[in-house]
């Protein structure tokens, strides 16, 4: 749904690195170098970002907007 906070295997926080990862990949950088620069050296952490698909935006297309008073 959204990037997991930590690596499933080792417990390193990976969520805070996802935005930068996505941005740099979009600019055409090599994923391997980006991951190295982010300090994700173990393959357990690397797959967390590489294999992630963000689907929260698709969920949000069906979001119900809460009723506010006076509407």
């Amino acid at each position: 749904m959204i990037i997991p906070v930590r690596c499933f295997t080792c417990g390193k926080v990976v969520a805070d690195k996802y935005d930068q990862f996505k941005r740099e990949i979009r600019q055409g950088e090599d994923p391997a170098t980006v991951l190295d620069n982010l300090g994700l050296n173990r393959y357990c952490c690397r797959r967390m970002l590489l294999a992630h698909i963000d689907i929260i935006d698709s969920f949000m297309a069906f979001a119900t907007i809460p009723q506010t008073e006076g509407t």
Partner: protein
Amino acid sequence: MEITIIRKQENIIHFLAEGLDVAFANALRRTMLTRLPAMAIDEVLVLENTSVMYDEMLAHRMGLIPLVTDLESYNLPEECDCEGKGCSLCQCTLTLEKQAGDEEEMVYSRDLSSQDPKIVPALGEIPLVKLAPKQRLIFEAYARLGKGVENAKFQPVSTVSYKYVPIIEVNKDKCNQCGDCVKVCPKNILLVEGDTIATQNTLDCSLCEACVEVCEPGAITIDSKKNSFLFKVESTGALTPEVIVEKSAEIFKERIRLALDYANSI
């Protein structure tokens, strides 16, 4: 036991420990993983959540945020005077209130406001949930100290590992300078230097022995030093690596003392 610090980065420390056996090294490692207390959010009171994420999932994500821990001013709930009911000496309240405007908005861990200015998320950039326009999130979270034995979210370290200290030896008489070992080494330890094979950054050697396998004359031997270990301690940000090693050593010593007392009493 002797400790030499090899490299120190912000959240990672590499050190060499000498004069201990595997059992001791592993006990130290496991103490760091499971016995050293750290703060984490343990209970979440959701007052309003109109986001697309379930309350449970959100609470789970909150629990995984590493919080900067102050071991001196907080008690473990089971050791606290309140007997685990929760008081200001063993609990810290964090609150979050956010409503998206007309644009969608990401909620980050830095949006949590803490009752105690010392207990704050170690990393502020962790995305928690994305809010669609007008969606709202209000909740109260209670953080407490806990240990890794109970739940991995309390672990102050993401990894603690140790390996043997490598000793790489090249027998000059047998070596024919074919250079095969230089090409095969994944860590770039070996290099041709004049008419011999030299080594660099030997501590990075992973002891894979790929070089031994490829060397036809059998000139390379990889060995490991007895009773020495290279440790790598990687903190989540809850405690500094120095504090982690220091405190774990104390806890470990205390546990050994308890075990000895028990053994002597039988």
